């Protein structure tokens, strides 16, 4: 259909007089060009996604478990040092039957998510200020980048002394770990906004706060999301550090304490279980929340190129 449009619509190049282009011809010509030029965008079918994205990591995990089991069978070391996969599984089963498994996971996850949300609430305006105000950037930009390389476990001791053994101390450690990542992500996102968008925004009347809201923030979204993703990872790591070091009956049992209890009781399957659960939560949140969000943003902007 496109080809007939073009034949009927196109005046031969060079051979046309001033009256060669009638309005209908132009519309037809344009429709033909559009049809020829338009970019075809299609999505990967579900089966292919399963085959190419889901299967490989599952195989990798299976392989690790198999090797682990082989090492246990080969008795490379004493079983108090290397518990078998089934012992860890039983340990999880015990906790499940006692009803504590989900409780322990939820204690940590809820702390981690709340701490993360607080970090977003603080890191976002902070990042915008650093990105947009030259003096603030010069003043605290380097410190903010530097804080990212400071292990947040360093903050646990002062946090306990300042705030005591309670949830506020946990949140303080999370904030100190995650806020710099989130703010820095936003700063680099803003820095990468093409100047053309800012100029286009200004000619449309988006200046000042309206410019920030309508142009800068959405344009910086990919960088911001990367910062959020890293911010979550830092939140989670900071929380685990805090939970392992600061234990008190008032704090409730989280994954970090579970790990610490395992150490105190020389319960290797319990330690393995705690490590696996910490890892599992970190991966699950990333896989369920951040990856889909990131992919959606990139795909909708045509930045996710299929190869």
């Amino acid at each position, binding site marked *: 259909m496109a080809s007939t449009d073009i034949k009927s619509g196109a005046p031969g190049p060079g051979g046309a007089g001033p009256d060669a282009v009638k309005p209908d011809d132009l519309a037809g010509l344009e429709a033909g060009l559009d049809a020829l030029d338009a970019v075809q965008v299609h999505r990967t079918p579900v089966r292919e996604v399963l085959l190419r994205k889901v299967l490989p990591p599952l195989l990798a995990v299976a392989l690790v478990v198999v090797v682990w089991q082989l090492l246990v069978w080969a008795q490379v070391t004493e079983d108090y040092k290397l518990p078998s996969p089934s012992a860890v599984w039983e340990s999880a089963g015990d906790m499940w039957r006692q009803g504590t498994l989900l409780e322990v996971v939820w204690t940590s996850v809820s702390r981690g998510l709340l701490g993360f949300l607080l970090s977003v609430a603080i890191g976002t305006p902070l990042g915008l200020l650093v990105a947009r105000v030259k003096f603030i950037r010069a003043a605290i930009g380097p410190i903010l980048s530097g804080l990212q390389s400071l292990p947040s476990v360093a903050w646990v001791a002062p946090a306990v002394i300042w705030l005591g053994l309670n949830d506020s101390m946990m949140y303080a450690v999370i904030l100190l770990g995650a806020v710099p990542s989130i703010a820095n992500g936003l700063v680099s996102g803003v820095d990468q906004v093409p100047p053309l968008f800012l100029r286009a925004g200004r000619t449309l*009347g988006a200046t000042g706060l309206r410019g920030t809201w309508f142009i800068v923030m959405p344009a910086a979204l990919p960088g911001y999301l990367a910062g959020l993703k890293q911010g979550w990872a830092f939140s989670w790591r900071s929380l685990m550090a805090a939970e392992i070091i600061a234990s008190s009956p008032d704090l409730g049992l989280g994954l970090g304490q579970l790990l610490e209890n395992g150490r105190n009781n020389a319960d290797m399957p319990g330690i393995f279980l705690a490590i696996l659960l910490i890892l599992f939560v970190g991966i699950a949140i990333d896989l369920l929340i951040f990856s889909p969000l990131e992919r959606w943003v990139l795909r909708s902007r045509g930045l996710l190129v299929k190869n």
Partner: protein
Amino acid sequence: MANTLTKAEDRVEVGHAARIAHVSKSFAGPTGAQLVLDDITLDVAPGEFVTLLGASGCGKSTLLNLVAGLDRPTGGSIETPGGRPALMFQEHALFPWLTAGKNIELALRLRGVPKSERRTEAERLLELVRLGGAYGKRVHELSGGMRQRVAMARALAQDSQLLLMDEPFAALDAITRDVLHDELTRIWRETNVSVLFVTHNVREAVRLAERVVLLSSRPGRIAHEWTVDIEQPRRIEDTAVAELSVEITEQLRGEIRRHGQH
């Protein structure tokens, strides 16, 4: 001709869409202040189509930025009585996080058009650039020519009396550019908008404009002006277009040659 952009009575009746008076611009350079534009005086009448033509370094984009209000002149004054001019770039400058339709709606929103009217108005503007079905399309799903047409619709959404165009078709292939020339002429006549169009392409300038203004380079000064008395719609291959283009090209080359003489 039906005025589809705005009702004529909404418009302020003024003698000019842009009045550029004795404008100069200099930038700080390695050897002191560098004069880029020197004493430019130019009026664009309401509904007039003017092209600014010049070799690279003549400051034509700088002048357009000044008129758009993105930068301030060092001397002289610029008036645009019809409000903030709309500006189209060589790159489409559409926002990739919005669909074609939402890009236009953002312009409407920033202009203060109420929410209830935005969708209809955006659809109408897309219809005007013959992209009726593209409302929900993402920028990356559109071809280069379609993107420039959406950009044109977004510029028209500002409802400004003056449309500034900074080599908007320079990055397009010849076939598409040719078609967009026809489109631009049609839309200009339908909407009565004034256009100040910057290009280095002589034939494009003659194909489109009622008046061609030639700028000399370093510093940019108005070197010459032609009124184009060829009936629209023109074709870029028309003999009359070609003849005037030859004359203008001669002048342009003369301007460029002067720079090789010291």
